[in-house]
């Protein structure tokens, strides 16, 4: 079943030029997909189109059957309640505890208080931070903060977890931990789409890889013959010619 569907999608910014063109792919239930490519290749644009922060200039994006071109603001809000979004910079509220940050995602969608307590406890355990619920973000390590951000993304039981460079700010050990957590979440049935520059992560797994360059989808392992590997996943290539 297709949860996310891109069909000939283009995105142009009035002052920023073409960010994406002719992008077509689907993300299915329970799938794990990497989005990779150099900076400015369109990875974040694809993620923003999925959570409807941006609307396509041409083509269309459907998320859980809702068209990004036609969705009303209310529909966008409703779609987002079924998505979990994780960013490189965690985006936690610094003046609230870890559990308050997670609870916030439920409070603003009108979830009853007793259910909030129960679900916050559950996701804190799931991300391995049950004992750190009362800690403020600044009292946690980078890896722990990202786990809290993931817990906040999970608390609404999303069908897709969108992760934009979730390990970009983490050391290798924390990266491994956070990535394993994302794998566990995926194993439990949630689809994950993860933008990353980390080729080691991509090489270590057999997950689907979608590669972008200059706003074009240049490789999708789901479309490629079984033997073919993503060019940049095999060895550093043109990515490294255009570093951040």
């Amino acid at each position: 079943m297709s949860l996310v569907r891109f069909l000939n999608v283009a995105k142009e910014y009035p002052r920023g030029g073409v960010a994406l063109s002719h992008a077509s792919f689907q993300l299915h239930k329970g799938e794990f997909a990497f989005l990779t490519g150099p900076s400015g290749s369109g990875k974040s644009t694809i993620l923003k189109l999925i959570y409807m922060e941006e609307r396509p200039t041409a083509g269309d994006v459907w998320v859980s059957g809702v068209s990004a071109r036609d969705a009303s603001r209310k529909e966008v809000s409703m779609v987002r309640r079924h998505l979990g979004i994780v960013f490189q910079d965690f985006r936690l509220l610094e003046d609230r505890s870890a559990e308050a940050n997670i609870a916030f995602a439920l409070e603003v969608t009108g979830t009853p208080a007793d259910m909030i307590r129960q679900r916050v406890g559950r996701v804190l355990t799931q991300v391995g931070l049950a004992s750190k619920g009362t800690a403020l973000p600044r009292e946690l390590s980078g890896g722990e903060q990202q786990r809290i951000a993931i817990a906040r993304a999970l608390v609404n039981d999303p069908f897709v977890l969108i992760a934009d460079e979730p390990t970009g700010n983490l050391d290798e050990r924390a990266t491994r931990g956070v990535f394993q957590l994302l794998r566990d979440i995926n194993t439990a049935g949630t689809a994950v789409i993860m933008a990353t520059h980390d080729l080691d992560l991509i090489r270590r797994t057999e997950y689907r890889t979608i590669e972008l360059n200059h706003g074009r989808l240049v490789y999708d392992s789901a479309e490629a013959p079984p033997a073919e590997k993503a060019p940049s996943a095999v060895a550093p290539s043109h990515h490294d010619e255009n570093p951040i």
Partner: protein
Amino acid sequence: MVIREAFSAFKRAPLLSVLGVVTIAFSLFAFGLFGLVAVNIRDALQAIENRVEIRAFIADGTPVEASSAAMGDIHAFPEVLSVTYVSQDDAYARARKELGEFSDVFEPGVLPASLDIKLKPGYRDPTTVQAVANRLKSYDFVDDVRYGEDWVAKLYRLRTIATLVGTGLGVAFAAVAVIIIGATIRIMVMARAREIEIMRLVGATNGFIRMPFVLEGFIQGVMGGLLALGLTWATSTAISHSFMRTEFFDPALATAGVIGGAVIGLLGSTFAVGRQLRRL
């Protein structure tokens, strides 16, 4: 959740919230001080205006019945508030009282009797006063009519200038207050841009996001309004005790001030959060 979020913002960022309330309070206080001056000038001019009077002198030998009958007619004029008959004796007594040490200048019976006519508020401008005076002159028994043309004209000019200057300054003060309060609320909303962004990303509707900010702006507006009212009252009381008696706002005007603060707070935060939502 909306009410709790609105109040918890005060707890989480007390300095910013106090800054908001104080800014609203001082902006409205400046406006309030101006209002206080305007109200007292208005009252002073009103008191002077209340003294506008037309005096129709009655010819000697006029029967009391004739002037009494005319009093009924004159009282029926739409502009007239009251008509008082002042006999020759009354005029003499009044003159002695008003002239003080020169009270012996007049002999009894020298001063003519008169009808003293006061006009209703709104009919004390030079044109109306002159029109009434001309109508009074048409009575046969009326010898002369006096109302201090120059004085009435000057008073009316002064009142017009005071109204124009007062309105202009009032609008300018109100605009400055709105701009300062608006900018402060915008800074406060921008300081919470991340919170707004996260609310949007987890699927809160724009209406839901706006509510705590709007409520918070309203509460700050009411608190700022009350503080401004207290400061204005304290200033007014201090001036009354130290320099001159001043009138404070009547309850309706005071309430309007607080409501004004609340409305500015509410609209300011509505616009600021709306702008922030469009930016994100």
